[in-house]
């Protein structure tokens, strides 16, 4: 199981306010699919407009990165810049 942290705003939309949720996954692709299965709409939201941070590194296009039970995972809005 991996522990996924969400912003309070995202949590209020998709997970009934839970800012930490657990899913079974070995990489980000599986994690997003599992989140979509457990919380409909969340996976789509992540794919369209969110980044994933793993162990402090923000990944704008996460897909195949490995995750495990020790990973610190945060779902964040996408970040661009000027």
């Amino acid at each position: 199981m991996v522990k996924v942290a969400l912003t309070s705003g995202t949590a209020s939309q998709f997970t009934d306010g839970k800012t930490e949720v657990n899913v079974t996954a070995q990489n980000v692709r599986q994690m997003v699919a599992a989140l979509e299965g457990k919380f409909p709409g969340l996976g789509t939201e992540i794919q369209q407009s969110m980044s994933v941070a793993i162990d402090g590194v923000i990944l704008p296009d996460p897909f195949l990165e490995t995750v495990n039970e020790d990973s610190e995972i945060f779902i964040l809005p996408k970040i661009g810049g000027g």
Partner: protein
Amino acid sequence: MNEQAKQFKFVGTRPIRPDGVDKVTGRAMYGADLTLPGMLEGKVVRSPHAHARIKSIDTSKAEALNGVKSVVTAADMPEAESKPVAAGEAMINFRDLAENVIARHKVFYEGQTVAAVAATSNEIAERAAALIEVEYEVLPHVIDVLDAMKDDAPVLHDHIFTGGVTPKPEKPSNVANRVEFALGDIDAGFAAADIVIERKFTTEPVHQAYIEPHAVVADMGPDGKADVWCSSQGHFMVRSFCAGLLKIEMSKIKVSAAEIGGGFGGKTTVYLEPLAIMLSRKAGRPVRMVMSREEIFRASGPTSGAAMTIKIGATKDGRITAGDATLCLQAGAFPGSPVGPAAMTAFAPYDLENVRVVGFDVVSNRPKVVAYRAPGAPISEYAVESVVDELASELGLDPIEFRAKNGAKEGTQAAYGVKFGTIGMQETLEAAKATEHYKIPLGPNQGRGVATGFWFNIGGESCAGIRINEDGSVSLTEGSPDIGGSRASMAIMAAEVLGIDVAKIKPSVVDTDATGYHFVTGGSRVTFATGMAVVDASKAAIDELRARAAKIWDVDVDGVVWEDGHAKPASTNVGDFEPMSLAEIAAIANKTGGPISGHADINAKGAGPGFGTHICDVEVDPDTGFVTVLRYTAVQDVGRAIHPSYVEGQLQGGAAQGIGWALNEAYMYDEDGKLENAGFLDYRVPVASDLPMIDTILVEIPNPTHPFGVRGVGEVPIIPPLAAVNNAVAAATGVRFTALPLSPPAILAGTGAGD
């Protein structure tokens, strides 16, 4: 061996920039400089209304004018589907992007494009534009962000129902989205505080104010293939957006990046480019379009204005116990303000247990905002840094020590969730405190302000090619438009890896047919991400150079190492061979397998966050309210300065723009929602005579994920100036101002001297 552990030969030096001579002699080609045989000039017809329904458009008189070759309206562009796309600062909707390029059913701001015309001269094109008859039904409009949030405000878009809230609202509104970030227990945090300060702030939208206007030349042939030259922060973005908007295969659009006279985020989207392609397609001739300065102000994106409430509590001994912020940011006519990054960065410089930030993305009848250096962060951090400064003052603490006591360190969990790795926040504070500037005594009506700033920085997709020429010189190709001297940095990094003189390397920004996809030049990413690609491509070239030397020596490639620009035997066991230079290997490349090159196509990860601390001294004239900036020092953790002169230039430019934001710049609308100051005479950006020398201090805490330790540097320096100036003015006047800009009338109103 980790590159960071080496002593550098070229990294950290200051060679003359490769584009320097072209730029100072006028040889450099900017967007408007290209002329093609048979080229037409294009002009845009813009809405005179802030909000109106388009009832009809009659182009017949314009089309009948001698010299007019094509006229386009939204009817010439396919209807866009509602689809999110990345656009510099945020995801935007493709349907909104299309509407912003050319209005279809409604106009949402004064200056929005409704039609375009191409003719054999500018004069004829202007006359033709005036002959296009548009019938409007004028609708009620709203300009101010808080007015736009009211229940009885005119609603711009019937399809916008506030996102980020549950349950979904039953009726549409101008509040496009709500975001929230929270850590800990905000109520408990404030209960533990000895002092709590709450203030409401406003900032005005400000324009990126690049000197070079938006400009494009497009040439579409009868085979449906288009060549486009334009001033842009991302020619791959231009290709992608034009292809999507016009339903053309990407391979049929070739975009070349002209030299660029500033962008600062404002050139991370398209305005003229799709219009020029449509006009060229219809006319069968190339079309050039150039915005006037007035058009730039009326129709291209500024960054958001905002209304904010900030509340921070602290203990008597100077520990912040809680921070709470509500941020309402103007998005302009379509959703997509930088409220997300504004919310994420607001308290990011601090190590706080209890934080809450709520943000709202609000549309109103203004031009759609677009990225401006560190989108959103200068706005929210201005407000937070102003309250932080007031808290330090109320507690009788040195403002730098107060920040250091609460400042983020390695391992700090930012309010947006992520734990920081190696960062230099504390080091910038220490360096600022150690400056002579911080110790200079101040005179009457003078004040000193300090502020910090944080920006994420990003990585993203970049490519690079290294071609070893027959004479040992090197052609370096990449596709990141060079705004701040990045070609020089690319050449330096390649020289460092290859071990040859930087003067032997010619870097070029090539077109979309000549290299792979690059994300825009934005997010302070190019020296980091494209630099990583250059390092990887250089290493790939070295691998090939070693392989060629191995063939020449008839040894295994593992027996060849690359040191100081030469192939050498790895040990005496390999054999007794004289080292071969890069030039010597290149000279006989035809005999060892053909041309030698190295390539890299990457999606760079691990951009190091950036922090800066600025000190500003001002003098306020008590009679006129005029603020003079006396001294200014910008300190920043830059990771590693590849070319220190350009890094210093980024800090100075960011500080200058931030000072303008703080003191001068604002959009002024009349009661009909029309912009009244669309030009540099009435929209006042700082000029050289307005500013002192901006002193810079480069702190180097290397980013562990970059081969040379690079962090992005272009965005952090625009963040602290707003609060640094505000805090300095507070110290000079004894009045805490909460609205920007700090114009003389605003100062006099605040001090009471204007009564």
